[in-house]
């Protein structure tokens, strides 16, 4: 019994390690080598559209609502201490440091990550990747690389849009509805938010999350068992693994950036 359990544990560890290795090889194959801008540029633009522009709506709406909720919740607490003037920094700092990068990454994993996994898994199942390889076109360079870069470029941009919209949403609720002074909303924010400490660190976070989410999504698709069941499992795994990894890395990055 116990030896069997141990065997299973060992096997799954080795399997995971091998999967990790394959994903590394995949990314290496996709990114190393001299890029071809004449062919690569239109592909990148297309993927920026699919991955970035099409995710914009969900980002805008969620950003607005999260900003509004933050203002509403923050106000009810702050007003007890007569500190509702600090609503601006509360909203801005939570969005810049945490919610912007993290929620964008989670939404991105659900919206774009799962779609990528399914698309690539399906291309594999219908032998499109194999066919491309036989036409002497490297699918890693043609399919994986533009999607990777598009994701890494899109997500920090989306996170900034999310944060900006969230702060505006906070303004909408805090100033226009709850009656916090508009001037103090912005001025206390300006006094407490630092460009490098908060804005740039938030951006760094979201770049790291972008690499994580997009790498997992592409690898799960590329490594999917080419059956309908395999693809559906890979899609689920993308969302679950990417979300958990993002949260784990968020803790590490937060500890490194703001903990010390």
């Amino acid at each position, binding site marked *: 019994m116990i030896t069997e359990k141990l065997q299973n544990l060992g096997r799954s560890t080795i399997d995971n390690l091998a999967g990790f290795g394959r994903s590394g090889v995949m990314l290496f194959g996709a990114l190393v080598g001299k890029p071809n801008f004449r062919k690569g540029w239109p592909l990148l633009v297309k993927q920026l559209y699919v991955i970035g522009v099409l995710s914009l709506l969900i980002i805008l709406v969620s950003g607005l609502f999260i900003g509004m909720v933050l203002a509403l919740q923050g106000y009810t607490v702050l007003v007890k201490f007569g500190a509702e003037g600090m609503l601006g920094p509360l909203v801005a700092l939570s969005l810049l440091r945490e919610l912007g990068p993290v929620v964008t990454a989670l939404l991105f994993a659900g919206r774009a990550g799962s779609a990528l996994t399914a698309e690539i898994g399906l291309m594999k199942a219908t032998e499109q990747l194999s066919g491309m390889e036989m036409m002497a076109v490297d699918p890693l360079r043609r399919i994986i690389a533009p999607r990777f870069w598009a994701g890494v470029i899109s997500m920090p941009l989306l996170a*900034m849009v999310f*944060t900006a919209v969230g702060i505006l949403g906070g303004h909408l609720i805090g100033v226009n509805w709850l009656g916090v002074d508009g001037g103090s909303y912005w001025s206390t924010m300006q006094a407490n938010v630092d*460009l490098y400490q908060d804005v740039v660190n938030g951006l760094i976070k979201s770049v790291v999350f972008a690499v994580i989410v997009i790498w997992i999504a592409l690898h799960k698709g590329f490594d999917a068992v080419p059956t309908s069941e395999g693809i559906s499992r890979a899609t689920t795994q993308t969302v679950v693994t990417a979300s958990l990894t993002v949260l784990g890395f968020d803790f590490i990055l937060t500890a490194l950036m703001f903990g010390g």
Partner: protein
Amino acid sequence: MTTRKIEILVGAFIVLAVAAFLMLALKVANAGISGSGQSYVLYAKFENIGGLKVRSPIKVGGVVVGRVASIDLDTVYYTPVVKMEINEQYSNFPETSSVAILTSGLLGEQYLGLQPGFIDETVQILADGDSIQDTRSAIVLEELIGQFLFNRGN
């Protein structure tokens, strides 16, 4: 969907994101006074800095003129030395100026209040790297209460 239309939408997306970044940098973080723009450095020694932090503002009559760049301990006398970065625009403080650690409001954050001194022929203007001699330390609440009780006892 034509390629042209996709290009336009992607372009709009990037413009929107850049606008968001500019808003975050300028309107939210107010990057005007930090990093960017020329500044010069002054030093001040204090007995006690209380809750002063790196990047705390330096104000003259309530106007922010610079920020605290670093806080170190003098290894000879073991007193805190505060390095201040002051905007180049305000470069005419005489050496008779004084600096105090003040608190904004009852529970607010601490900041450096710079008080310009008098000027006559013998007084020099503070230059990059000079120190301000006349400093007043932070008020520590426990000390204040202790003093008050001590005085009452008399």
